[in-house]
Structure formats: structure tokens, C-alpha cells
């Protein structure tokens, strides 16, 4: 992905562009080298599949966040949304066992329910931002609190658990592999490719970028700004719901601690990947690398006892800043001519 991005713009500013697009990739490769030198088991097949599968949740959500941020918005509610969708999904599936049995029908209904609610929640965020003209930060801060307390309420403060009779049907969605790759990784791949095409090869993607660069100019250019912006939140909701569908079969439970800080991880993945926080420029390929980088940091820290456990947050913070610095070094050079 990063490669095709590169060839596309190769004609224009090759040397400066290199570092910018390659920054996240370089950071990831460096991390892998560090991981391997700490412990060769890091590059073992098992660990690589673990890493990819784990990245899928944040990765899928971050693809949605790339659209929101590119169009100049922000969505803080995704972590809480994931928690409440998981919770509702579990409740729906548990209550359907008597009617539909423990087979695929129940699981499918649960998934469809999650998709409808995810899209609906995204729609609410979008409409409140565009129609009610409330800042996205405030709207999604509000819905973040609402979703989080709803899951606590549904779970009675405890944990919602998927009925054991359903787990045999649903478990494979997380644990089974297809052609050597676990199913969540396939979903992640599918979402990434679809996201890349949507952002880079369609009018919709160009409108997002245009709105993020300058909303007024976009408005005067006859772009239906409100509709496009709402659509980005709907895409975000859809992505959260997809992530939920592959998250629930992992441990079959949801509680108030599900998805805590996922919104910040998703936003960090997007920014590490080279998308500009204030909007107007988005990179799906970078977002995916960003998600991989975040998961890899956590993984490496579990692979070594050189660094005190208490300093995990410090290491994560440092690596995120360095990764962004790596790609900004190129951005600054190009920014002078582009803006």
C-alpha cells in the first residue's frame, strides 16, 4: 500500500516524500529489529500471528478514524462505543438462544444488531456535529460518557458474558485461521483495502480531504459538506462495529473496562501513520502501520524484563513521539511548497 502510494507521487517530489511516507515503516522495522535482538522468539510464527490479530481491533477502528480526522473531525467515543456494542451484542445473542438456538442464526443476528447500532451511533455523532453545529470534540466526549455508563448499567456494574453454549459457534471467528492467517487479520486486510480505495480512488475520499483542508472552500465548491462529514462518522461507527464482531468471540465478555483508551490508541495510530490531526491529509496505509507499531511496542515490552514495568508508559510515549517526528521531518519540507 505504501508502495503504490509512493509510485503514484514519485514523479513530483521523490527525495523529500521518501522519509515522510516511509517514516512509519522505518519505525516499525526498527521495532522489529529491537524485538528480535531482545528475543528471537519475537519473530516466531506464533508471535507474528498474535501481533497481527491483536492489531486488528485498533487497526479497523483507526481506518474509520482516518476518515473522520481527514475530514477535520475527531471521534472520542469509539472505545466506549465498542464496549456498549459488545455488551448489547452479548445480551441480544444470549436472549435469542431460546428462539433461534445456539447456531449461526443467533450469532448472525447479534452481528447484524451490532452493525445497525454501530452505524446508528455514528449517525448520531455525525448529525449532532453537522446539524446541531456542536464541536465534534464535545459531541463525542458526551457520547463517550453515555456509551461507557450504558455498558456499566447493562452489566449491572459487572461483566456481561456470552452464554457458553454459543461459544462453540462463535469462537472460531477469532481463533480459526484461513489460508494461514487468522480471520481477524483477513477482516483487517479487507477493511484496509476498502478504506484505501475509498479514500484515494473515489470522489468521496477527495471530498473528505477537501473538507478537512478548508470547509468553507469545500462548501463553495458545491460539496455537500454536512452529508460527507456525517458519512465519515457513520463509517467510523461501522468500523467500530466490525471490530466488536471480531472482539466478542475472543473472551466472550464485555464490561466497563472493555475498550478503555481505545479512542486514544486509534487516534495515535492515525497520527503516527502520517494523517494530519487538523485534517486535510489522510493516509490509510500509514494508519495500518501506526496500529501495528502501537501493538508491537506493547508486545516487545512483554518480551523483556530489562525495562521496569512501571516505565512501560514512558517507552510507549517516547516511541510514539519518535515515530511521528520521523515522518514530520519530511512533512515540514514539503509543507512549505504545498500550503
Amino acid at each position, binding site marked *: 500500500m505504501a508502495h503504490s502510494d509512493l509510485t503514484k507521487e514519485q514523479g513530483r517530489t521523490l527525495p523529500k516524500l521518501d522519509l515522510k511516507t516511509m517514516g512509519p515503516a522505518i519505525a516499525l522495522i526498527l521495532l522489529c529489529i529491537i524485538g528480535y535482538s531482545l*528475543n528471537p*522468539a*519475537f519473530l*516466531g510464527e*506464533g*508471535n507474528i500471528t*498474535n501481533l497481527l490479530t*491483536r492489531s486488528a481491533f485498533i487497526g479497523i477502528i483507526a481506518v474509520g478514524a482516518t476518515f473522520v480526522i481527514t475530514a477535520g473531525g475527531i471521534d472520542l467515543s469509539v472505545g466506549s462505543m465498542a464496549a456498549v456494542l459488545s455488551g448489547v451484542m452479548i445480551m441480544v445473542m444470549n436472549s435469542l438462544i431460546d428462539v433461534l438456538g445456539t447456531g449461526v442464526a443467533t450469532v448472525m443476528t447479534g452481528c447484524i444488531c451490532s452493525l445497525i447500532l454501530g452505524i446508528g451511533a455514528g449517525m448520531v455523532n455525525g448529525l449532532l456535529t453537522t446539524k446541531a453545529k456542536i464541536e465534534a470534540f464535545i459531541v463525542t466526549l458526551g457520547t463517550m460518557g453515555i456509551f461507557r455508563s450504558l455498558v*456499566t448499567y447493562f*452489566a*449491572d*456494574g*459487572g*461483566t456481561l*458474558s456470552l452464554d457458553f453454549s454459543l461459544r462453540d459457534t462463535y469462537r472460531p471467528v477469532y*481463533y480459526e485461521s484461513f489460508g494461514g492467517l487468522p480471520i481477524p487479520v483477513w477482516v483487517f486486510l479487507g477493511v484496509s483495502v476498502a478504506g484505501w480505495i475509498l479514500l484515494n480512488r473515489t470522489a468521496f475520499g477527495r471530498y473528505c480531504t477537501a473538507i478537512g483542508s478548508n470547509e468553507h472552500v469545500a462548501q463553495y465548491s458545491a460539496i455537500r459538506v454536512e452529508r460527507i462529514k456525517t458519512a465519515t462518522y457513520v463509517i467510523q461507527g461501522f468500523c467500530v462495529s466490525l471490530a466488536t464482531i471480531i472482539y466478542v468471540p*475472543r*473472551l466472550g*465478555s464485555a*464490561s*466497563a*473496562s*472493555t475498550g478503555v483508551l481505545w479512542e486514544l490508541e486509534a487516534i495515535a495510530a492515525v497520527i503516527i501513520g502520517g494523517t494530519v490531526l487538523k485534517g486535510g491529509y489522510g493516509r490509510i496505509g500509514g494508519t495500518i502501520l501506526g496500529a501495528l507499531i502501537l501493538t508491537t511496542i*506493547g*508486545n516487545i515490552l*512483554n*518480551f523483556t*524484563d530489562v525495562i521496569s*514495568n*512501571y516505565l*512501560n508508559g514512558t517507552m510507549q510515549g517516547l516511541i510514539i513521539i519518535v515515530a511521528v517526528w520521523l515522518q514530520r521531518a519530511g512533512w515540514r519540507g514539503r509543507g512549505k511548497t504545498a500550503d
Partner: protein
Amino acid sequence: MTVKATVAALAVGGVLAMAGTAFAQDEKIKIGVSYPTPTHAWAAGMNWHAEKAEERIEALYPDVDMILVNSPDPASQASALEDLVSVNQIDALVILPFESDPLTDPVLNVKKSGALITVVDRGLSQPGIEDIYVAGNNPELGRISAQYMKTRIGEGDNIVILRGIPTLIDNERFDAFMEEIEGSGINVLDHKHANWNRDDGFEVMQDFLSRFDDIDAVWAQDDDIAIGVVAALEQAGRDGDGMFVVGGAGMKETIKGIMDGNELVPVDVLYPPAMIATAMDVTVAAFKSNGPVAGRYILGATLITPENAEDFYFPDSPF
């Protein structure tokens, strides 16, 4: 009965009932119970046990009135305490403080009003405020877990440890465990924080499994972490060969598993959410018993095995 008659009957009944409560209020022993709104499963269990204890105690002693209040943060808990004194005029307070420091002064003010103070689980920052103290035993939880490990494995065997959120509670449990395990020849390969949460338990355990080929047992310290650990072990197909996981707290699913003879999680170490009920009972005893009750009650970190599991199983509790 006509509608009018019903209304009249209700009105008369209402007046009588109000008169009844007004009369009873002067006589009743009022005990305020303040604790955090649940944000995790253990606290939800604690809330449930508090409500159960209220029902039970009020049925047993009609002249005791329990006033249960839960608060979402330390500041609202402090306000709740003020209300309990000014509005409810409580005779005793049972409190599980959100945090020690911000609630020490508010509790001191309640004490100045003349109420009996019972503190649960987390101590206050200043000694001597509480009349009764009821708590679980964190070091004991670590020690009992280590003692069980030593009965199952020995010299040259390897374990990994998943710790909670970096806090004093976690340190007390961990230090006591390490002290007990020392000299047994059991190798602790590494310990990482899994933040008392299933997802982190799963991921940290996955990484331990990739990193170490030979693990004989896992100390997960907490039942939520243990659920993640078990999922990771099953995924890697390393849940056989006598591998076992020791959690802690007393989650109902875990205890059910122990009753059913689960070999992967064969025991649990108690850190009971029902301690709030113990505290409420002791506080009532201060008004009802002819024996002295003031003092410190440190509950045992009981090892839950198939033999005694039934005593700790509450299927209706959320935890």
C-alpha cells in the same frame, strides 16, 4: 370499591404510614453505608452484597434502618457523607472509601457528629478515626497463593506472574508471594502488569507463551486476569500437562468451576466483595450485642477448594 373510596382509603393509609415512619424514625438506629459506584465486577459484587445485607439486617432488627448510598467519585462520596449526617442524622457510618486521602477529613467530620465509624477495605490516612476496621488481607492472598503453588510444584519448575494495576495493593500481594516462594527452588520467569483485566491478561499471557517454552504454572492474582490467561493457554494448546492457574477474589464463575472440578483453575484465593456485609453486621452488633466489638477485623484469604467452594458461591451476585 368506588374510585373515590379507593382514593380516600389510600389517603388515610398514607397519613397513617407517614405517622408511623415519623414515629419510628425517632426510635430507629440509623446506619449510613457509603461505598463507590461499581466500575468493575468486584465492586458490583460488593454493591450486591451490601443490598442483601440491608434486607437481611432490617428484617432481623425492625428498629435498624440502613441507608445505602453509592457515589461515583471521591468528591461526591464526601458530599454524601455530609448528607448522611445533616439529613439522615446517622448513628453510625460504614464506609468503603474511594481513596484514603480525600476522604479522611470528611469521615473525621462524621465522627465529630458522634457517629460510630466503621471503615472497610481501604484505611484512612490518619490513624484512630475508625472504631471498627474490616478488611481483606492482601499480603495473605499472596502468601496463600504461593503456599498452594509449593504443594503442586517444586525445585526447578517455572512460573510466570501476572500482576494487577501498579498500586500498593498489588505490591503487598506480590511481595508476600515472592517472600513465600523464595527458597523453594521455583523459578519466577517474569512478572508483568495485566491491570486486573481480561484483555490484558490474554495479551500478556500470549506473550509469555511465545517467550517461554517451559511454563508449569501461572499466578494470575485475580479472577478476571485468570480468564484471559486461560483463553491464551487454550489458544496455544498449552492447557494440558498439569498446567494450572491460580487467581484470586472469588468470582462466581471461577468458584463454580472449582465446584465442577476444573483442573486448569483448581483453586481460588478469597478477597471477598462480601466484606461490606461483614462490616455492616459488626456495626449493628455494636448496638445490639452485649460483647465489645470495636477493633480490627482482618478477614482470612481463604483457599477455596472443591471441598469448601459451596460456602463462597453466590449465583445471583453479579460477581
